[in-house]
């Protein structure tokens, strides 16, 4: 299997401008998607991949307009199907960096099946889920990530759906790269997106994204300075789970269950805290279940396992093995078959 030529000396020096199309961006002013777009345009020049080897695929929804604004190869497909299309792109040519950007309705409702199975197969695709917990383009209906009781045009008495947990879904499928970020945290977005793109296997990145028209402030508890230090926790590989405005709180196991503790009180020290290990799926499972206000919500790279072979690798491995066994496949022999007879 071929891999991306990261050391190509002919690689032009790109700037974000090289990845900007001439199309007017049509998102609402103040939309969180702008931040995601900026992060992607900023990250692409540093990926060591030629511009023509990026393919962006999306489904339908506000976020799905993304490919029109990134000057690479791209496809705006149909509702929910971006990952199925992207799987075809990656399997047709594994040299390409394939990225899917779409929303919570697209990836978790109508396209939920493809999300599950792409991650299960570990197709080498980067998925950016712009989760605004609402249907924006269709004007404000509740989404699969909306909280129960959500008042919306289709749920005037409050939604009676329980929300889906995207990280838990990723964990359940054995996804090999699971991360979460805030749209406004440009630094984290940059780091996570670059790692995700470089990851060999499916990279699933959930972005808390603000829809300032239909679901404004849905993530304010996590994105505002006053509350974010208590409502979120940034996990870093090899470092203990510490959060709070003054890094005064941590998370430890108590009888197998995580609990929030105050560092330096009741004899609790840093040494008692859980240390983040991104290779440990058990921890990822725990992170998936941590939600505010009981826990701070984990941000960063929650899980990364680059050792699992990707679907596209295995596909090409089988192709290569078959070709190696018969380097000159004989079409005539195939068409004639093994049990032919001659009429004279």
């Amino acid at each position, binding site marked *: 299997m071929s891999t991306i030529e990261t050391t190509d000396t002919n690689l032009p020096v790109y700037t974000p401008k090289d990845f900007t199309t001439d199309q007017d961006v049509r998102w609402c002013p103040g939309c969180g998607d702008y931040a995601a777009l900026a992060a992607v345009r900023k990250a692409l020049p540093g990926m060591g991949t030629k511009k023509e080897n990026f393919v962006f695929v999306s489904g339908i929804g506000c976020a799905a307009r993304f490919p029109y604004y990134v000057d690479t190869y791209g496809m705006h497909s149909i509702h929910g199907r971006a990952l199925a299309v992207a799987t075809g792109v990656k399997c047709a040519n594994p040299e390409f960096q394939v990225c899917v950007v779409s929303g919570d309705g697209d990836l978790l409702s109508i396209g939920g099946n493809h999300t599950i199975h792409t991650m299960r197969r570990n197709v080498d695709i980067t998925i950016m889920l712009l989760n605004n917990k609402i249907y924006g383009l269709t004007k404000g209906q509740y989404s699969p990530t909306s909280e129960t009781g959500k008042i919306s045009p289709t749920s005037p008495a409050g939604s009676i759906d329980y929300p889906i947990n995207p990280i838990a879904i990723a964990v359940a499928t054995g996804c090999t790269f699971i991360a979460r970020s805030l749209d406004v945290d440009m630094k984290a977005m940059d780091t996570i997106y670059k790692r995700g793109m470089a990851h060999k296997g499916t990279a699933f990145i959930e972005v808390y994204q603000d829809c300032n028209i239909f679901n404004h402030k849905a993530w304010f508890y996590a994105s505002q300075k006053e509350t974010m230090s208590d409502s979120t926790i940034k996990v870093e590989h090899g470092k203990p789970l510490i959060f709070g405005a003054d890094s005064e709180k941590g998370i430890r196991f108590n009888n197998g269950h995580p609990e929030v503790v105050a560092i330096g009180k009741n004899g609790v020290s840093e040494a008692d805290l859980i240390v983040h290990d991104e290779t440990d799926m058990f921890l990822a499972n725990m992170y998936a279940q941590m939600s505010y206000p009981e826990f701070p919500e984990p941000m960063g790279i929650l899980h990364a396992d680059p050792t699992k072979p990707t679907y596209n690798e295995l596909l090409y491995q089988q192709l290569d093995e078959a*070709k190696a066994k018969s380097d000159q496949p004989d079409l005539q022999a195939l068409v004639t078959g093994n049990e*032919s007879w*001659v009429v004279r």
Partner: protein
Amino acid sequence: MPTDQSIDTPSQTLDSVVIRFCGDSGDGMQLTGGQFTDTSALFGNDFATFPDFPAEIRAPKGTTFGVSGFQIHFSSESIFTPGDRVNAMVAMNPAGLKVNLVDVEPGGIIIVNEDEFTKGNLSKCGYLDGYNPLEDEEIANKYNLVKVPMSRLTKESLADSGMGAKDVNRCRNMFALGIVYWLYERPIDQTKEYLTKKFAEKKGLPEVAKINIQALQAGYYFGETAEVFPSRYRVPPAKQEAGVYRQISGNEATVLGLVTASQKASKPILYASYPITPASSVIHGLSHLKRFGIKTIQSEDEIAAICTAIGASFTGDIGVTGTSGPGLALKGEAMGLALMLELPLVIVNVQRAGPATGLPTKTEQADLLQAMYGRHCESPVIVLAPRSPSDCFNMAIEAVRLSVKYMTPVIYLSDGYIANGAEPWKVPDVSSIPEIHITHPTAADAGENGFMPYARDPETLSRPWAIPGTPGLEHRVGSLEKDAESGNVSYDPDNHDMMVRLRAEKIERVAQSIPLLEVDGDSSGDVLVLGWGGTYGSITTAIQQVRANGHKVSSAHLQYLNPFPSNTEEALRSFKKVIIPEINLGQLSMLIRSKYLIETVGINIVKGQPFKVETLVERITEVIES
């Protein structure tokens, strides 16, 4: 060693014989019929087969709904169908007899395994208490009923084998096959070789191969010595054009056609599919052809399958997906995407009886209108339909050729009957098959204003197929309406109107790249019988008989349904009456009437079965005489 020379039994020579093997779905009837077919093929007969099996893999034993059948028509003449009337039937159990008796011609041979006609088995298949068809005088008078204690004889012949009862019991089908081989003077060596290969070499079970061969021989000797048949039958080899022949089913031919197209286009095919009867054997076949660069993906659902094929085509492979009617319905929106993107895509639809789950293992031709119109808005695609098992090879190549030439989805309408049915096929010389030329633009092809992904070829109206990895041609395609040249999103009303017309016009122009409709018989006259797709064999045979009865009739068969060949209207207008037989309620009739305002007379029978020739002859004659 059995030979073709029987000592005492006289032999009659026949032109054609139709045999049906039937029994429980676990009785190995498909294998038995397949072996008889292989042997007859090598013997030099023309043949056509019709496997007919239930959707259930192992339905409750002995029930009528668990009956599996395999019919073969073999002949010293050219034949096109598996035959209407069964001349000889092997029934391994009462349920098989009960279900299939109706198709046996009066005077026909019925060989039954009488050991299975126990009280319990008779009641399992719904015979009234105390009734045994083997004791029914009416049946005995009407047919040539041959009762053979096959279970007991098989057991006795294998008594010294040391094998368990289960293995021994499973050899009954070979005992039955042995009898039939003797009766029709067929050599048994081919099947012996097959059994050795299957059990001894592939599965490492030489003892199983041995007892199967013993049972086969025992059946053959039983025919020779038991003197229950007054005559043997000989069907001499058919006169066939010289050449190399093989047996081929429609789905096998589809696989070979796709691989050949891939080789001729020097392009990998990516075939993504979700398992569905009766299309699954296409992905089974292709998944063994990785050495030809064929990529197969078993997708999570029908929609994923077509979308993955679309992604592959966008990237420069030839994307192909395969399904049956229910799956085609699920793929509807994505087909719209592919035609909006104007990318090559082949959608193999092996039609089955429906709607909904319908009769999944039975055939039907009722997806024509779905193929034509089963998408939202103005969304024409190319529609092709192979007419016989071997024609699937040619039409699969055609599907790829037209798809890449016109940058558009092609729906390929096979059906369960030709997909599973087999016939002899004169193997083509693959080097004589034309190359499929594909060009991808490079940066040098971009104009002054940059690359225009939707600029069109003036002749075909197809757009350039620029693929990722090409520097300087980075572009976005999408499901939104696009500007006629740049492909950028456009909400301009006039642009949309123009694009709708362009997409339609492009498909119309395909008529310039396909053969004309050929009329068999006089090119004008009173009656033309017009068929399409998998009914070619039955219609052709019926026409021969109608003519033999002294009537004048012409026929034509459509393999290109959208667009129609450019001479279609002219050809149809040359006749006073146009009869259209189809296994639906008149879908081609509707298309012909609406497009040409030509009145048609439909022959519409929707039983999940291929047409019976005698029914067609009767109905066509009625119209001619009316």
